[in-house]
């Protein structure tokens, strides 16, 4: 073949230092983009929290799987609440109420372990620990953990308000503990800020921790602290305007409580559950515990459940018996045919 030299010169091999440099450059670019993205989109980073080995192991699972497991556990906790205590805990808490229910605690803890973004689970677990079980610090730490994990969540203000509520009304639930409304006010402010920052109104929830209710509590505590002007502003922001010459006394808050109760009445009918969100009583402290009548009703519901077991005879007996009889007949026919089939195949061999 003309024109094709027999010995083509080989191209020069790439210089080693250039390859190494390119490799390092790529590494630096990927590292920088990784941490830039993390910084830009927020969320938790590994440096910000001491993860245990088991938490890290769970992080390996895809988020969808973790959500599925957490959802199942959340439903299980709901089931545990409504069926009431086992014989080991008989009489310690009521069916249908989460208050003092120790059986749901490991279930909810596991749910949060798999999915740390379940705001409702933090709220119920935290309230149960602080107000109804002697674990105030643990409850507050748990709610703070919830705040840490859900920095961008539109429901973040609910967690802040839960903490504020626990600090502000602990006296009503636990003897020997004093309210700390100064700290509570700081958390209420944080709640309002979180609501505004995370656009909290974009998700319609049935929670009573809406800004107007948060402002109402804020107004009361501010008034108690002697900050009348700020209290007026808070009331105005809550949509409960007071004329400047009206005395801000306990009577005012009674009427304010009545207004809040009227607002909440529609909500309480739609959440007829023991796990329902806290209710605000008209004249005294807002109480997250479901009222006695609600408990009694739920307990009655569970008593009925006890009598009418989901696994009862009447529901399935006829079907199972009919099914069994039919299958036995077919099994008999098959036995006979298997004998004849075997004889035929034996005769062939």
């Amino acid at each position, binding site marked *: 073949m003309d024109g094709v030299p027999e010995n083509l010169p080989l191209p020069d091999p790439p210089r080693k230092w250039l390859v190494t440099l390119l490799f390092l450059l790529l590494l630096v670019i990927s590292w920088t983009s990784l941490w830039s993205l993390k910084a830009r989109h927020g969320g938790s980073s590994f440096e910000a929290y001491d993860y245990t080995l088991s938490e890290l192991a769970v992080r390996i699972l895809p988020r969808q799987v973790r959500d599925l497991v957490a959802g199942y556990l959340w439903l299980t906790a709901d089931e545990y609440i409504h069926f009431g205590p086992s014989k*080991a805990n008989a009489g310690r808490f009521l069916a249908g109420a989460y208050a003092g229910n120790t059986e749901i605690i490991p279930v909810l803890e596991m749910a949060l372990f798999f999915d740390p973004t379940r705001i409702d689970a933090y709220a119920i677990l935290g309230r149960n620990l602080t107000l109804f079980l002697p674990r105030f610090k643990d409850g507050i730490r748990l709610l703070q953990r919830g705040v840490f994990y859900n920095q961008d969540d539109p429901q973040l203000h609910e967690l802040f308000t839960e903490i504020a509520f626990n600090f502000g009304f602990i006296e009503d639930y636990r003897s020997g503990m004093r309210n700390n409304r100064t700290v509570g006010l700081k958390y209420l402010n944080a709640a309002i800020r979180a609501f505004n920052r995370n656009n909290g109104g974009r998700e319609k929830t049935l929670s009573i921790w809406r800004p107007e209710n948060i402002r109402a509590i804020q107004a009361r505590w501010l008034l108690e602290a002697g900050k009348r002007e700020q209290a007026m502003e808070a009331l105005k922001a809550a949509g409960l305007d007071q004329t400047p010459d009206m005395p801000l006394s306990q009577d005012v808050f009674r009427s304010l409580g009545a207004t809040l109760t009227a607002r909440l009445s529609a909500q309480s009918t739609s959440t007829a559950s023991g796990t329902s969100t806290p209710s605000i009583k008209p004249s005294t402290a807002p109480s997250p515990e479901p009222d006695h009548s609600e408990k009694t009703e739920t307990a009655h519901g569970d008593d009925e459940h006890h009598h009418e077991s989901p696994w009862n005879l009447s529901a399935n007996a006829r079907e199972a018996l009919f*099914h069994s009889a039919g299958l036995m007949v077919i099994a008999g026919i098959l*036995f006979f045919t298997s004998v004849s089939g075997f004889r035929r195949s034996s005769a062939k061999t």
Partner: protein
Amino acid sequence: MLRSLSAMLWIGWYGFLETLRNRLLLGVALLVLPMLGASLLLNTYDLGFQAKIVKDIGLNIISVFGLFIVLILSLDQIIPDIERRSIYFVLTRMTRRDIYLFGRFLGVAASLAFYQTIMGGLLVLLLYSQTGLWYDELAVGIFVLFLKQCVLLSVILTLATFTSKIVIMSLGILIYSLGHTYDIFRMLAEKQSNTLLSWFIECVAFFLPDFSLYEIRINIVHELPFQASSLAILAVYTCALCMFYLALGGNILSRRDL
């Protein structure tokens, strides 16, 4: 008749001994025991031992382990015998092939009962040591689990008489999942008011096991009362299903050219 019964029992007994020597199974059993013990770690915030969740998790572990036993052991029964041709030595000594299948079923069922009794006993003792109370309803729960897994075992042994291992696994899992969801399909057919579809579902449901009847978890975990007659009927239903599937498997095996 007596000769067949004796042959069936001997096959079952040797099958049981064979499974006890299965190292894989012992490994799984050793894995499960610490898992049961780990339920003690659920005492978060030092609020005391919570019996309900331990019962719940314990029953689930026993159920999953039973499922493993059924899948691992039943695949190791008929197909390897045919492949290694050791089945010929057994069949030359008996008149019917379906007796062989029944014997194999008894062997795995005995292993299932053995392991479930150990695990159930351990769970009851664990609960007693922590709460000082006997949770006798767990015995019923484990019995119902045993019945459920016997049905699945008979289905898989039947499939093993004519298909390969991979098909058995796929069909077994399909039948198991389908057996828990008939009511959903019934509801969907009812919503669409499609009589033909309803009849089709009923036809399928007649021949395939309905595992939703064995869902007794809520009664056991929440200590709800259950009726003894329901248990008796469930046992009858299980016997009928197992007989049906084993007869079907025996029939197929009898006609198969080995």
